[in-house]
């Protein structure tokens, strides 16, 4: 039961997305309450995770349903409307403004910020990319691009950041760095909604977990409990989660 006063950070009601004869999301409802700060969304490939993120971030318009951010209805199909309501988002493959410098990428997202350059420099320092501030974004490695993309989305001070497979395709050492940044940002009050295939990472970071399978929400709850759910294990994990979840289970 939520003890947080106020509406959920993000509330999705009966979200449905159909492309022709294909149903990508079927009547999905979930709520990110203010009690927690890092939520996870997992599921097999094609389960609708990125489609859900695309709806919330305004990239696509759902067929039905409603999305509310801090209790305010989101005008769907408009990325700018989503940004103005407090949705920030990174992408599976990082999408930077490739022909601009790292610093200019952040400054492009700084409208409304009182001290944009200072804020940009602080965020670059947080993700340890200060040395690359003048580099062209298109010349960075995948891991570096993900860090810059994270810093850029934080320029807007979003209510919740949607992270779409931020650990995908990067070195394990970089994954550790990213986890460290997320914990630091969490302590500063930033909220994250993660889509991840790295179950170990999900188990380490997330407080509450949602599981999609074939466009439907099949499980939700405290992360460690969900990871032990037989239906989840069957549909997605195929096996119990790794040491992080096992340690939590042993302690339970």
């Amino acid at each position: 039961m939520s003890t947080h006063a106020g509406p959920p950070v993000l509330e999705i009601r009966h979200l449905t997305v159909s492309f022709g004869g294909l149903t990508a999301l079927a009547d999905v409802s979930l709520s990110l309450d203010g009690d927690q700060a890092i939520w996870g969304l997992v599921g097999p490939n094609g389960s609708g995770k990125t489609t859900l993120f695309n709806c919330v971030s305004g990239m696509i318009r759902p067929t039905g349903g409603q999305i509310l951010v801090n209790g305010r209805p989101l005008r769907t199909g408009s990325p700018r409307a989503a940004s103005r309501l407090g949705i920030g988002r990174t992408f599976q493959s990082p999408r930077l403004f490739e022909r601009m410098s790292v610093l200019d990428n952040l400054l492009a997202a700084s409208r409304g910020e009182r001290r944009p350059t200072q804020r940009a420099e602080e965020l670059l320092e947080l993700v340890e990319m200060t040395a690359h501030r003048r580099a062209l974004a298109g010349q960075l490695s995948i891991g570096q691009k993900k860090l810059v993309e994270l810093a850029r989305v934080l320029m807007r001070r979003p209510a919740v950041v949607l992270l779409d497979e931020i650990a995908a395709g990067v070195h394990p050492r970089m994954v550790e760095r990213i986890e460290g940044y997320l914990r630091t940002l969490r302590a500063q009050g930033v909220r994250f909604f993660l889509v991840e295939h790295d179950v170990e990472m999900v188990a380490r970071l997330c407080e509450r977990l949602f599981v999609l399978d074939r466009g439907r929400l099949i499980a939700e709850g405290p992360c460690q409990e969900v990871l032990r759910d037989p239906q989840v294990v069957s549909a997605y994990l195929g096996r119990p989660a790794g040491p992080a979840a096992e340690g939590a289970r042993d302690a339970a």
Partner: protein
Amino acid sequence: MTTIVAGRPLQRLLAAGRGGTLSERTPAHLVTLGLVTVALLVAPHLNVNSYHLTVLYYVLFYAAFTQTWNLSSGMTGYLSFAHPFLLAAGGYAALFGLHRGLGLSAAIALGAGIGLLAGGVLALTSVRARHLVFGFLTLFIVMAMEIVAELWTPVTGGVSGLIAPKFTSFELSYYLTAVALLVTTLAIVLLRSRIVGREVLAIRDDEDVAASVGINTSMLKALLFGAAGGLTGLIGASHVLFLGSAHPNNLFPLHLIVLPLALTLVGGASRVWGPLLAAGGYTLLTEMLRVSAPTIHLIILGAAVVLVARLRSI
């Protein structure tokens, strides 16, 4: 999009000066702009004959025409083929105003105003039509407008065109075009030094992501295409006064459709000086080859576009 590969010397040379932050070169740009302004003010008063003044005017005309295209299409990445439409809108409006009894200043202002509205038409087109579709639509617009110019006799004079009813001096057209060029260049310099310039270039690189970080892409496109339309309309008004007439043949020739795109690509889209230098070089080359090889300049320009496209990302 071709990415620059480290280790190729020529490509590294072309990439030199890129990266960094956009606003770092603003003071140098402003100083250069000041020097260019002085040079443009002085040039007509140098001891040159009328032929050289005509060449000077055409260098200025093509530079200004290209730079206004750079302001809208070069900055946003929405490549428009309808730039002659903006030129013609301003030219026809100015002469129409003069024929209806407007004073010279009012007629020129009318040309700029109609050009601004015409730019708004292109901005509206860009709201729903993205890059490739937008380009095709602008091609349709310019072709359709040429037909309108030929048929709408009460306003445009039809296939006969409109004759400028008043004699105006060379200096008027020269300085009006120079003003358009300087204002457009200053706008590009100031855009690149401000947050708004980064927002515009973000549209060029990835419009959906630009919107997702809060950038008002529709408003920015409207502003830039409107401004470019107004300035190109001013150039059009000036140009028809220089030519003495407005006629579909001199406002809708094929090379004006592709020239600003080609010259901006060669000079560097969204750069401050590259498109101007490309336009100036092209005009002088055209003039030098006019007698001996009147069409080879197009082959040279085409080869330059291909070469630049191979060497750097566009």
